[in-house]
């Protein structure tokens, strides 16, 4: 059997008329869903993992953007004669978080 003949066979099969659903198919699906609901397995709400999975690309981009912003500010602030972000953070931690007397 060569490729051309196989192609012809596929082409002929492609023309097969598609079967239509019988009348009342949608109603039967709905009945099955009601039975499903009665059995207690209704539509599942997305689990925390599903939601995290959906949010992951956005969270990742937001984190990258935040890091880039912090790095940019750190480079720009000394040039503009503003207190450096690292100095500011060090000052805050000295004053509030890690004082000799503790909190």
């Amino acid at each position, binding site marked *: 059997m*060569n490729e051309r*003949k196989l192609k012809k066979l596929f082409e002929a099969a492609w023309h097969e008329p598609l079967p239509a659903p019988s009348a009342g*198919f949608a109603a039967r699906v*709905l009945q*099955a869903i*009601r039975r499903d609901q009665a059995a207690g397995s209704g539509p599942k709400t997305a689990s925390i993992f599903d939601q995290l999975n959906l949010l992951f690309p956005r969270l990742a981009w937001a984190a990258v953007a935040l890091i880039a912003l912090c790095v940019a500010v750190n480079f720009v602030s000394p040039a503009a004669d503003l207190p450096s972000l690292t100095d500011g953070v060090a000052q805050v931690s000295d004053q509030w978080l890690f004082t000799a007397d503790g909190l």
Partner: protein
Amino acid sequence: MNDDAEVLERIRSGATDEFAELVQRHQAQVFAILSRYEHDHHRLEDLAQETFVKAWRSLGRFDGRAPFQHWLSKIAVRVAIDHLRRRKRSRNEIGLPELGEDALEWLRTDEGQSELEANQACELLEVAMRELSPAERLVITLQEIEGRSVKEISALTGSSGVAVRVRALRARTKLRKALGQLKQQENERTKAKETF
């Protein structure tokens, strides 16, 4: 389809009956996919029903980023492959008696000069495709009979493009071999008839 989003919103807020609207909109598409793998109408309806019930159960996971019909097609394809795997594979010899005379005549000719009706082509493919694995059958059907691209098949099946190409190639080789065997059997049968 934007209307789908509205219907889905109503379903999510508790209007279960609205799901029938979605079934009516997309049933033709689901039947079109599944009918390539099951020819018995009752079993086909069961598979279509299974597809919609699975879609209903997973509605919470549908994020609306892709159109509803694409998401539903993926579920239908998964139902189809599960069906092919479940179906007891009858690994008996390829059965010539199952084929009509026109299909056998077409098989005998070298270049397939005679025209083959769609239903006979499907019968012939059905018999030859018994030699394929469910995944190979799925890929070659989606590619050659439904006319989908590798990218589309990859999205529907969750396989990589390379895997789709490899399966399609393997399926083609196996199909050519199976059809060649059928032709050989038919030629032997014809010769035996002439000898009598």
